[in-house]
């Protein structure tokens, strides 16, 4: 694997500050925590896809020796959900179940065997209702409603119209439309879901340690569903083994574990199986996209019409946001004069979908980029030339009110075009081999928070004491993406001290300031800016103390490499420790804070749903994928990837390169082999044998390039780096397959069976055309 960043940035970066703990096994994940004396919590799940709950009898389970608590929907009075406008889920189903695997009851017992036996003793009688596993069936006129307040089983319809669409299509030299279908996928994070909850009956306090990416939302939802005062609750995030959006909303098992702990008056540990982790789901929905594009002979886009249908599963979750993102992210990457978007988020009797890396934008990007490729072919244009004909010019504001302050897509295109040898190789490769390319982008944090409180988007506390160590307290959830390391670097660089002076304590609601969590790639931008602000505040105190000690004025003090002097090259110098001692006189331990708020002009358009997609800055990516296709068996191999990402500035190039590779790899999983499959609503994919993530055998060399466009508002100019490169992979691969064997696949993933079917159809079509020609002559 070649990582080309050092030459471009002149910096290598640092390993993650918790990296050694992880690779040596010292890091404690939720399932590693001390659970001495903890009861085992287990969940009973619905065997049916859609039914009314007629009768529940838990008396036999309660009577079993060793059972400490049994809960059902009757114990869950309050609905929850990540969006305040769409809370329609109960931790345990009440009255009705809506998917196979939905939690209906829970038990806490002295051990696993007893808990499982108790589950067997719970009697539930269902009256089955018609169940719908496809969007079209759920939307049929006579379909039974999953939620009575949502006619047509549509959770949210979106209709956005920007620019003059008719004029745009009229101005085009070529108008083409295609329909693509992207299978539902799952995050498949390696750590299964787990939660350790302890309720202290004497104080009435609850402590929950959990795999969450959104500690604050979990805190809120626990208070809501358990009807407790927030002040009585503490949530701690230990090390987390991957999120990717799986834990970006509060999940049923988290609330259930806490409820069991309270009911049992003690400590309850729950670890879901891999199957249950899959059933908890909340991932990228099956998506149908109908995309129509107008293009001029020179490759300029004239208009775009896009209809998206997402099969969202049984509950709302993030659904409204996902369907809005799918339309909003048509913008902010290219200059398109007119865009019409129609989105439908549909309920179905399947596990609820949610947010996944590249939230909302990935499947529309697939539809868009593959259609651009086909139209370029038809017009005899180079795919790179078409992208270059449609670049934005920063700073600019899109039609839907998104601000673009920095834009490095042109440089990204140059980098991968050069590195892949595109000009020399494209269209000149041996049979069955080809290159394909695509672009993508993503937000650096949602500029409008989900729960609007008027508080800043991010707050960081810094503590400095006699030891000269700086402790950064942040609520930002490090879930492996390296956010704690980013905080440490931001503080150290601002203070001008080494990283060894900084400690980061993260995600403990009793200690760290509230943070909205690890989602929409918000942490580097928002928390990074807050960290810099906090460090500047601390530095000001230190400079004042140094000035006093050196009998000078603060504005005369120069701080460099942890040494404070009067003027550049001044003789009198104070070490960092000396300045700290001076600053602590009369004051004692110092606490400062810094915060960051996205200005209102960045918070999106005024139209309904306009906040979704709004951000302080977009990352941009271009990538080239080289593939080989075996047209006898339909097997596809990815031979090489060249990818460039504009992340504004790489605060830690080593971590950025890792995130670029990770997002490319995850995009490859969706493109190549990952998909969920249901048999009458039963998840048949719910293991790592049948949910096929790529193995190391399928993983190509990835050559990653970092482009630094220096965003004017980003921390040190930085933007996000973890999601932007994902969405480009599926279209780049599918376009490459098209160039390799002349088959335009309209589905994801590009599995051998789908490909062989497409090849077969093409052969039949060619044979029919030949017959027709023979008949005519």
């Amino acid at each position, binding site marked *: 694997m070649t990582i080309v960043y050092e030459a471009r940035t002149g910096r290598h970066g640092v390993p993650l500050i918790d990296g050694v703990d992880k690779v040596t096994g010292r890091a404690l994940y939720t399932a590693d925590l001390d659970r001495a004396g903890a009861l085992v919590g*287990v*969940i009973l*799940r619905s*065997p*049916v896809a859609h039914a009314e709950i007629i009768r529940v009898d838990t008396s036999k389970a309660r009577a079993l020796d060793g059972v400490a608590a049994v809960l059902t929907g009757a114990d869950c009075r309050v609905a929850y959900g990540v969006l305040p406008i769409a809370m329609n889920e109960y931790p345990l189903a009440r009255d009705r179940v809506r998917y*196979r695997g939905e939690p209906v009851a829970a038990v806490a017992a002295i051990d*696993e*065997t007893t808990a*499982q036996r108790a589950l067997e003793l719970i009697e539930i009688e269902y009256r089955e209702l018609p169940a719908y596993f496809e969007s079209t069936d759920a939307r049929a006129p006579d379909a039974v409603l999953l939620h009575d307040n949502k006619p047509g089983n549509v959770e949210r319809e979106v209709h956005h119209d920007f620019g003059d669409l008719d004029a745009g299509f009229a101005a085009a030299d070529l108008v083409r439309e295609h329909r693509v279908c992207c299978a539902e996928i799952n995050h498949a994070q390696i750590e299964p879901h787990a939660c350790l909850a302890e309720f202290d009956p004497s104080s009435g306090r609850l402590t929950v340690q959990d795999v969450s990416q959104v500690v604050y939302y979990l805190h809120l939802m626990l208070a809501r569903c358990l009807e407790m005062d927030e002040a009585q609750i503490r949530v701690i995030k230990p090390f987390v083994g991957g999120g990717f959006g799986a834990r970006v909303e509060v999940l049923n098992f988290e609330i259930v574990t806490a409820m069991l702990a309270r009911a049992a008056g003690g400590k309850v540990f729950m670890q*879901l*199986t891999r*199957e*249950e982790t899959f059933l908890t789901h909340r991932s990228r929905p099956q998506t149908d996209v109908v995309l129509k594009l107008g293009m001029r002979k020179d490759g300029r886009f004239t208009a775009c019409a896009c209809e998206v249908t997402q099969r969202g599963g049984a509950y709302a979750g993030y659904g409204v946001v996902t369907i809005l993102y799918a339309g909003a992210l048509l913008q902010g990457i290219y200059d398109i004069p007119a865009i019409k978007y129609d989105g439908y988020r549909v309920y179905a009797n399947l596990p609820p979908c949610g947010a996944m890396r590249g939230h909302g934008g990935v499947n529309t990007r697939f539809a868009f980029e593959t259609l651009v490729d086909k139209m370029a072919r038809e017009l005899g244009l180079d795919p790179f030339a078409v992208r270059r004909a449609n670049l934005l010019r920063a700073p600019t504001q899109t039609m839907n009110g998104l601000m673009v302050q920095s834009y490095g897509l042109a440089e990204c295109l140059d980098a991968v075009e050069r590195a892949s040898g595109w000009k020399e190789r494209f269209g000149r490769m041996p049979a069955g081999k080809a290159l394909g390319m695509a672009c993508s982008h993503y937000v650096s944090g949602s500029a409008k928070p989900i729960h609007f409180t008027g508080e800043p988007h991010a707050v960081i506390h810094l503590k400095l004491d006699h030891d000269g160590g700086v402790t950064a307290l942040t609520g930002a959830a490090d879930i492996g993406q390296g956010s704690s390391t980013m905080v440490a670097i931001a503080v150290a660089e601002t203070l001008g001290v080494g990283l060894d002076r900084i400690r980061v304590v993260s995600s403990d609601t009793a200690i760290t300031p509230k943070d909205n969590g690890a989602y929409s790639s918000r942490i580097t931008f928002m928390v990074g800016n807050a960290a810099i602000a906090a460090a500047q505040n601390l530095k000001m105190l230190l400079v004042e103390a140094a000035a006093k000690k050196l009998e000078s004025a603060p504005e005369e003090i120069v701080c460099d490499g942890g040494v404070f002097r009067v003027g550049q090259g001044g003789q009198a110098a104070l070490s960092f420790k000396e300045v700290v001692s001076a600053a602590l006189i009369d004051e004692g331990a110092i606490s400062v804070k810094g915060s960051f708020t996205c200005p209102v002009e960045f918070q999106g358009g005024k139209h309904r749903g306009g906040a979704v997609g709004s951000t302080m800055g977009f990352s941009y990516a271009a990538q080239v994928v080289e593939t080989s296709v075996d047209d*006898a*068996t*339909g*097997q596809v191999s990815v031979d090489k990837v060249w990818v460039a990402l504009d992340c504004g500035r790489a605060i830690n190039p080593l971590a950025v390169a890792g995130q670029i590779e990770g997002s490319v790899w995850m995009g490859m999983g969706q493109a190549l*082999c990952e998909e969920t*499959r249901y*048999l*009458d609503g*039963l*998840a*048949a*994919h*719910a293991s790592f*044998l*049948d949910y*096929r993530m*790529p*193995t*190391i*055998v*399928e993983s190509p060399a990835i050559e990653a390039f970092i482009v630094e466009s220096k965003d004017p508002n980003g921390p040190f100019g930085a933007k996000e780096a973890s999601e932007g490169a994902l969405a480009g992979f599926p279209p780049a691969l599918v376009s490459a397959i098209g160039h390799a064997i002349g088959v335009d696949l309209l589905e994801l993933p590009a*599995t*051998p*069976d789908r490909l*062989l*079917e497409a090849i*077969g159809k093409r052969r039949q079509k060619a044979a029919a055309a030949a017959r027709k020609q023979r008949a005519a002559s």
Partner: protein
Amino acid sequence: MSVELADVVVAQPATIEEAVALAADAGARYVAGGTDLIVNMRRGVTTAARLVDISGIAALKTIVVEANGAVIGGGVEIARLVGHDGIARLFPVIAQAAVTIAAPAHRNVATVGGNLCLDTRCIYYNQSEWWRRSNGWCLKNRGDTCHVAPRGERCHAAFSGDLAPALLALDAEVEIAGSAGRRRMPLRDLYVEDGKAHLTLAPGELLVCVRVTRKMDAFAYEKIRQRGAIDYPLAGVAVGLTMRERRIADLRIGLTGLASYPFLAAGLENLVGREVDDDLLKEIDRAVQRQAQPMRTTLAAAHYRRLAAAAVARRLVARLAA
């Protein structure tokens, strides 16, 4: 949704005779690597009151290579086949098939006997207890309906071992130990086409070894799967070919993953004397498509498995003949 194993007694015999005696009780199962059995026990599709662990029996773990043949112990780990010099020299196709099995960590403990006696697999069977109960069980386990072919009489779970097709093409013989002593039979007689009971072994019988003799000139194995590691075969094709004066003298095609048992394609003797040209390759393609009739036991389409098996058979014959 338990993942805990029920209590089980594990016996660790040192000899084949001890093992056979220990396995005589109802409810006893042999275990070696356990890469298939333990997963199935955790899922509740296989139960055992006693596990007879044969991984410590030295007599099962030898590979003896002779001038023109080999005897491979049932307890030989798959990884040893991959790296064995004698096997690589005489029967590279065995190593070729072995290296496609699962992943390196599995191959270190999984055995030849385990792979030949692998339980059949199906998307309706290899699921959790909760899943199968929610689906009304199935013919192979506790139920009376095969969800793959609900109107049929039998279970259609597919055999998925990778060694069998190569060994069938090699005309291998297996030696079996049981309470009545030892017996030998052709490998093909180990199997019958019934997903619920695909092995002809009597209760308590143990596969001791496999004997192969080199009778043909060239062999090859290719496995169709979605990923290059871990996955079971969607189809596996082994071809053995001997050419004399550019004409077919002997041709065998062993198939796996396509039915409840591994089998040799029938009727290939009619191709003896033919040149390997486009027409012949088309006939092979058609013959495999006709004989390979996979059912919907995997998430990948059955039709695909049939087409891919035929394409691979055709390709391997062409390659070996060239």
